[in-house]
């Protein structure tokens, strides 16, 4: 169970990215986060694994206070939270397999991983994850040689290497074409359904929300404006989230 309580983030320049956001996600749920660009979706996801330190509020996960965790505790918490990014964020100059193995860093002793020593079990697990996303043949290619869809699949394999209980997906399909978008979303769906991993996924297109999400929260200018089932988003609700002049395209 993930509980976000009164979460507020004010950046150093005074921008209020999140103000008093509270919601709950039960284990194994697929939650979509929607809202305009700049509405605070990315900030919210990054507060959950503390890539960004929230200004106020509390995030409780499995009875542990993430917001109060020390650096060492945070390392332990982060390794159980996988993250998938809009721009894939692979290390483009490294090999695909190295990128996937990087998901194991939280479990590896720092001294050994510095000289690129991963255990045999880790290497085998990395190959299995690559097989799952259909990229085992590309293991020794440089990541920059892959197409966008393939890169995102490597990103998912990296997140899965962490053996996560939760995956934060920050607009995972926004840089991909619609066909690839569905294929990536299906991987996330399978991870959610078969591996029982909680998924928090920010999305732009409502049809994807209807198709994949079990619950939805919506942000507008850092405030939570909707929490409920995807089917509950009617035209009026839509305008509340996206502004009065918005038109539905999806």
């Amino acid at each position, binding site marked *: 169970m993930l509980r976000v309580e009164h979460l507020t983030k004010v950046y150093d320049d005074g921008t209020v990215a999140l103000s008093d956001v509270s919601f709950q996600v039960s284990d194994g749920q697929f939650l979509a986060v929607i809202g305009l660009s700049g509405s605070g979706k990315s900030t919210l996801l990054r507060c959950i694994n503390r890539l960004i330190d929230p200004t106020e509020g509390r995030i409780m996960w499995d009875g542990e206070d993430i917001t109060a965790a020390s650096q060492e505790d945070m390392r332990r918490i*982060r390794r159980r939270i996988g993250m998938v990014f809009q721009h894939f964020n692979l290390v483009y100059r490294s090999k695909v397999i190295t990128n996937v193995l*990087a998901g194991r*860093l939280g479990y590896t*002793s720092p001294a050994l991983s510095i000289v690129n020593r991963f255990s045999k079990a880790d290497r085998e697990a990395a190959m299995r994850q690559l097989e799952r996303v259909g990229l085992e043949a590309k293991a020794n290619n440089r990541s920059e040689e892959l197409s966008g869809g393939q890169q995102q699949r490597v990103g998912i394999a990296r997140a899965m290497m962490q053996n996560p209980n939760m995956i934060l997906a920050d607009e995972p399909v926004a840089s991909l074409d619609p066909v690839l978008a569905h294929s990536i979303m299906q991987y996330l769906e399978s991870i959610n359904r078969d591996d029982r991993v909680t998924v928090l996924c920010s999305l732009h297109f409502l049809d994807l929300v209807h198709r994949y999400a079990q619950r939805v929260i919506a942000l507008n200018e850092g405030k939570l404006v909707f929490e409920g089932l995807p089917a509950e988003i009617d035209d009026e609700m839509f305008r509340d989230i996206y502004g009065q002049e918005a038109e539905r395209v999806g």
Partner: protein
Amino acid sequence: MAEPGADNSGKIPETTPRRPKFNRRRSLWIIVGILAGFVVYAYAFQTTEVSLSKIRDETRQESLVRVLRALAQPDLLDWETVNTDVDLQYLIPCPDAGFEPVAIEGDLNISVSPTCANPRDVVTVSGTGFIPNEQVQVFFVPPNGTRLRLTIARTDASGSFVEDVRLPNRPDESLQTIQAESKVRVGSIFSPAYVSDSDGHTVRSPRWSQNAVDTLDKIIETVFLALLATTAGTIIAIPLSFFAAKNLMRDVRIPALQLGLAVVAVPIGVGGGLLAFNWTKDLVLAMSDSAILHGASTLVLAWLTIRLLRLAVPPPGAQTGRYARIGAGLGAGLLILTAGQTLARFAELAGTWFAQNLSGAAFLGEFVASLGDILATVFGVLTAVAGAGVLGLLGSKLGYGVAKRVPESIRSLLTILSMALAGGIVAVGVGQVVGFLYEIAGTRSTVTIPFVVGAFLGALIAWRGLRRGYLAAGIGVYYASRTVFNTMRSIEPLVMAIVFVIWVGLGPFAGSLALGLHTVAALTKLYSEQVESISPGPVEAVRATGATRLQTVVYGVVPQIVSPYISFTMYRWDINVRMSTIIGFVGGGGIGFLLQQNIRLLNYRAAAAQMLAIAIVVASMDYLSSRLRERFV
């Protein structure tokens, strides 16, 4: 004529462009600007003594031509010479029909004007094709074969001469001869000749001149000087560059209590590290001077270290007691120290043995021995740094533990106290340096006053840290290292070389130290700017997996900077080769020393050889580095 894409429908544009309003103030400023520019450049002309009349002055132009010609003929080859005659037919007195002598064949040529004359007439003898700046003896040879010397001429830089001579009173009806005798070079570049010199040795002509041999010797010295400076500079600059990168240091924020305790612990760590270093050093020196013994103990110690490290850093999930781990870590540290010492000693002993027993490869043995010496020195420094690091970390952890257990008021008090102590310690350190530089005696102004001031500043910083909860220690390190490296970079290597020449004496060692130091400063800046320009996404992704800061750097940052680092290092080697050609001007070794000497002696042909060598080396370096960059980047 309609412009392509223009609207041809004949519609009048809605707004006709209006003439910009005349702006009196702006025009005034432009005029003032132009006048100011005029004054600035006039003054610049005066101070730099710009003078076109000097450029046009004929005697100066002649000097220029002389130097240019000398530079165009670098002193690279020595030629053997032999005396050669060249004969020209002549008639005294002139027949009525006049006289035209048979033309001379070959490179040497003389002519006399007029081609025949009466006894005791003054005629002009001129010659071409001789060796530049060489004596030419001119003789009159009557039919009986006696040689009457008319004059000794000297050729100019192009190998010609012109001389007026008075003919002897030797009228004769048959042909007589005017003869010029001078030295000529033997052999040519493509078909060299072999002749006996004055000592009876067979020598080749032409052969490399002494200047060419010296130039080659010094240009090799130059290239290796640059290589050493670049290597040493790069090794030091790489770790430092991370501390001068804003994007890495910005997030390093430490609670004030942890920072204070860490700073207090650092001097203790340095002291402890040095103590351990000296202790192991004495231990190793007490062993007998046998290279085999030291080599074997290095291997054994290394093996033991690895075993202990396995205990100290167990694989995740292994059940190892905390104290066992700490003990194993300490033991491994001490063993590494001892192993380093025995390795250094082994290199020294083995290298010296090699140098003494293998005369042909003595320099290899000496190199190994030097490496051992360097290793021993570097190990001392590293131990002090490692001690500081470990103790600093322990101090920080202690701070964390204490902060979690005590109530807030006590925590605040402890924070201010520890930061005051830390500030005091740092200030006393600064005070000691100042006291050393300005030879201040007495402890009042080097210990007491700095401590009080530092403690006050430390407490002030702690107060700030209390309000925000942490101190931006990373940004402090960033600005400090930036300041140091910018200052160091602004001092030209030539100036640094002067200081190093005073320290280690004339020669290439001083030059490579100066270049190395400057390389550290310059590369740290270039490298750190590379780190700052990496894409942050991958770093964020690696951090999100639960990686430590060090792992994040190794997996997220390093792969992104490898190729620019290689590229910058090669660029720096290129610069260092160029710099090392002039570092000799101040005694820093390399080819600059020869170049400067020859310029001072006005020996421009010799200097030209050195300039040529520099040009060849710089051009080929440029080519090589661009090829390597294509390959790696």
